[in-house]
């Protein structure tokens, strides 16, 4: 399985902070494509957004980043701390 985390506005939009999906995706891009098929909200905020950031195992990642079973994949909007 792959552990997925959603933060801040994404967590509220999707109504969940965390979920597990089967580890059947080779890259972040394939995972995003699959999540986007869930509907309008998912497509808009994950697939079509330029602003969204992805991290795999606490490192900033991109669509080509490979993922494997046991990985933690996090999606979040641009950061606004400090």
């Amino acid at each position, binding site marked *: 399985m792959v552990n997925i*985390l959603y*933060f*801040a*506005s994404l967590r509220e939009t999707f109504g969940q902070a965390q979920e597990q999906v089967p580890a059947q995706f080779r890259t972040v891009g394939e995972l995003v494509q699959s999540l986007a098929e869930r509907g309008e909200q998912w497509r808009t905020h994950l697939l079509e957004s330029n*602003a969204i950031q992805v*991290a795999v195992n*606490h490192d900033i990642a991109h669509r080509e980043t490979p993922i494997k079973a046991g990985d933690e994949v*996090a999606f*979040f*909007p*641009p*950061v*606004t*701390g*400090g």
Partner: protein
Amino acid sequence: MSDSQNPFVRVQQDDFDLTTEVNWLRNEHADVGAVVAFVGTVRDINEGDDIQQLELEHYPGMTEKALEAIRQQAHQRWSLESSLIIHRIGKMQPKDQIVLVAVASRHRENAFEASHFIMDYLKTNAPFWKKEWTPEGERWVDARLSDEQAIQRWLKD
């Protein structure tokens, strides 16, 4: 070393005391001549609206790792004796302290530059998100273009 054991990077709900932290930091090393401390605080107005409350969210594990990476970059770039980042999470009121970045060095130039660098990178590279409450309701704070631009100056040198 787990993140929770790193005394130079702390993400916490509790407030911090400036004197205590700066004294601790500069006593870590004998040859300190300069300390620059940055304190970020909750403004009571943002984007023209009254701010009643602020909430800070982070990504446990990744946030601490990102802050430590920024700190290490600063130590590679400048000659520093020690440095410290404390960032609060949870709910805060106007005037509350949010973040402390403190840098101790022999001479002032390095402490000024490094603390500024750490803050600029923290703003764009550390996973924190702010939500604010105004009389019209709550809203997530948008990332500022000026923060993106601020790190450009560090790429030129």
